């Protein structure tokens, strides 16, 4: 056997497998973006600021990787889990204690879900504080729309978590769903109907479990996938990250170098110049690099880091499973997962007495306040009157007041979450974290 020939064949196979992400030169890098199915998401060239870890913290990418981990682990869990009231709890116990690496699968799914809520939220905070929801220098931008898509993705993430933690059919699941669907029923006029539709009846039983299972495994992931695609497509159409607009704006102040006549067309199919090129009025050679391998390498680093953190946390943090669901016994205290405890605090403190008339905290804290917050978030890009110079800049001076208002709202949510997590004991009474809880009987 000719070893030189074998080696060169091996090299050729390796080259064919990898050439799109280790291109020999700029020409091949640009070509790879056009010809490769995965790389065609990206622009041929990417500006240096948008590659920075410090600007975006890559939180959007991390959210996407977490969603990928959740989809993969979720698909395997679907083979192992039985969505039946009689067997759900037992099947989760089997996954935890009998199935090979089942504990890791379930733990990874749970950790990735918790992290996804946190990371998507932090991503929103980043976008707000950098005014990245605003249109900057590019043509045909619709960043406010993309911000609204993002807010919807955050809500979908919450719903995925909510429907997911019902599935083990343990005490946490049962009482969370009791509280959650009763919040829905507090909505005026249609509330009771919505609760009936969600549960498929009046009591939390098989119908409810099946509905939440289908929502969790099909409808919501498909919704997130669709919104994610739309979100990414809009990022491309809006000319990439907002920091590129800032770069383009600051460029104009420099001694005018002639703008290059060269344009990139989308596979030669789209007429005119792409929006990315429209916005990148920057000196390409000084401020941009080839997407492949510069962007792809960082993407892989972000993916690896996310997987590493998730795996380590899965090993370090045990995945709890409470007692099997028991409609006869409400745990004391009955707490939702940490990301809903601010809502649980809100529904507790917002019952209002107006003479003989009482408004349930479920309506104010569970529906009105979150509804107003979501509406405010969606409307904010249209109320923001700051100049394009503030787009893509962390904590811009001219946006100081609105950043402060936003951070106060974020701080309120965080504080309520901390109070709910660490300072609420039996009967939802306030206890300092170092105070011991009194013994209370579990049963009547």
């Amino acid at each position, binding site marked *: 056997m000719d070893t030189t020939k074998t080696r060169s064949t091996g090299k050729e196979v390796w080259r064919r497998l990898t050439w799109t992400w280790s291109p020999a030169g700029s020409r091949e890098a640009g070509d790879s973006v056009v010809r490769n199915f995965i790389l065609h998401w990206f622009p041929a060239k990417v500006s240096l600021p948008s590659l920075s870890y410090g600007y975006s913290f890559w939180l959007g990418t991390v959210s996407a990787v977490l969603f990928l981990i959740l989809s993969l682990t979720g698909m395997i869990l679907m083979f192992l889990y039985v969505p039946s009231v009689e067997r759900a709890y037992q099947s989760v116990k089997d996954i935890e204690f009998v199935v090979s690496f089942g504990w890791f699968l379930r733990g990874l799914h749970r950790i990735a879900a918790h992290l996804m809520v946190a990371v998507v939220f932090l991503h929103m905070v980043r976008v707000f504080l950098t005014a990245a929801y605003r249109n900057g220098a590019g043509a045909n931008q619709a960043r406010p729309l993309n911000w609204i898509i993002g807010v919807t993705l955050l809500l979908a993430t919450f719903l995925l978590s909510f429907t997911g933690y019902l599935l083990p059919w343990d005490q946490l699941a049962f*009482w969370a769903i*009791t*509280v959650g*669907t*009763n*919040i829905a029923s507090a909505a005026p006029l249609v509330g009771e109907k919505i609760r*009936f*539709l969600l549960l*498929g*009846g*009046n*009591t939390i*039983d098989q*119908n409810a479990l099946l509905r939440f299972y289908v929502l969790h495994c099909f409808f919501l992931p498909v919704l997130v996938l669709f919104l994610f695609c739309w979100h990414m497509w809009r990022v491309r159409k809006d000319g990439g990250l907002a920091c590129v607009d800032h770069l383009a704006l600051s460029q104009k102040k420099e001694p005018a170098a002639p703008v290059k006549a060269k344009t990139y067309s989308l596979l030669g199919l789209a007429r005119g110049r792409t929006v990315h090129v429209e916005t990148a009025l920057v000196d390409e050679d000084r401020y941009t690099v080839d997407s492949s391998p510069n962007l792809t390498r960082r993407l892989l680093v972000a993916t690896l880091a996310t997987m590493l953190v998730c795996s380590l946390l899965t090993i370090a943090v045990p995945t709890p499973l409470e007692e099997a669901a028991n*409609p*006869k*016994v*409400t*745990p*004391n*205290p*009955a707490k939702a997962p940490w990301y809903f405890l601010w809502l*649980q605090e809100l*529904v*507790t*403190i*917002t*019952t209002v007495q107006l003479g003989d008339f*009482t*408004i*349930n*905290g*479920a309506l104010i804290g569970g529906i009105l306040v979150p509804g107003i917050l979501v509406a405010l978030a969606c409307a904010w890009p249209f109320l923001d009157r700051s100049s394009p110079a503030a787009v893509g800049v962390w904590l811009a001076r001219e946006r100081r007041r609105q950043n402060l208002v936003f951070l106060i709202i974020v701080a309120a949510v965080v504080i309520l979450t901390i109070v709910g997590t660490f300072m609420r004991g*039996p*009967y*939802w*009474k306030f206890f300092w974290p170092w105070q011991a809880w009194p013994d209370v*009987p579990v049963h*009547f």
Partner: protein
Amino acid sequence: MKSMRLFRKREEGVASRGAQGPATGQTRRSWLDRTGLAALALSITGIGSAFVRSLFPNVLYEPAQRFKAGLPEQFSEGATFLEDQRVYVFREQKTFYCISAVCTHLGCTVKMVNLNQPKTVTIGGRQVQERREFHCPCHGSRYYSDGTNYSGPAPTPLAWHKLEIAPDDGSLIVDLSTKVGRDFRLTV
């Protein structure tokens, strides 16, 4: 809608070529376009509402709202908690009444707490000596022994349910679908 504009462009083209388009721009083709789109929208709405309707069950395999709780003499003096149905049945010698254990805030099961020392409270202008209360573990709502909410987020008092005696075997019937006033007593 972009697709609508696409249609319009074509029909303008037809109109400019001198087809039967009157001055308003209305043509047979545009009428057919609109009728077709309306039919499509109507059928999607119709089929969609049928899908949604199918998710509202017509038959519920749930526990009965009206059930026999046992013979009256089997109930001990004071409170008995029927945990499956989440109600407290109270017996005061020959009279019975029934209070729901479902918190009116968000539906958790309230627990009955016997007070170490009786306390005097005013309920509806009357001075009453209380020996027990209901506390909700979920959000800390509190109720007096007759179900009147006095603290925490609960917006209304606990529900009182109707009690009856079964004509066939004399059992106590609890009717969860019928609410009664707080003066309701069943004397056996």
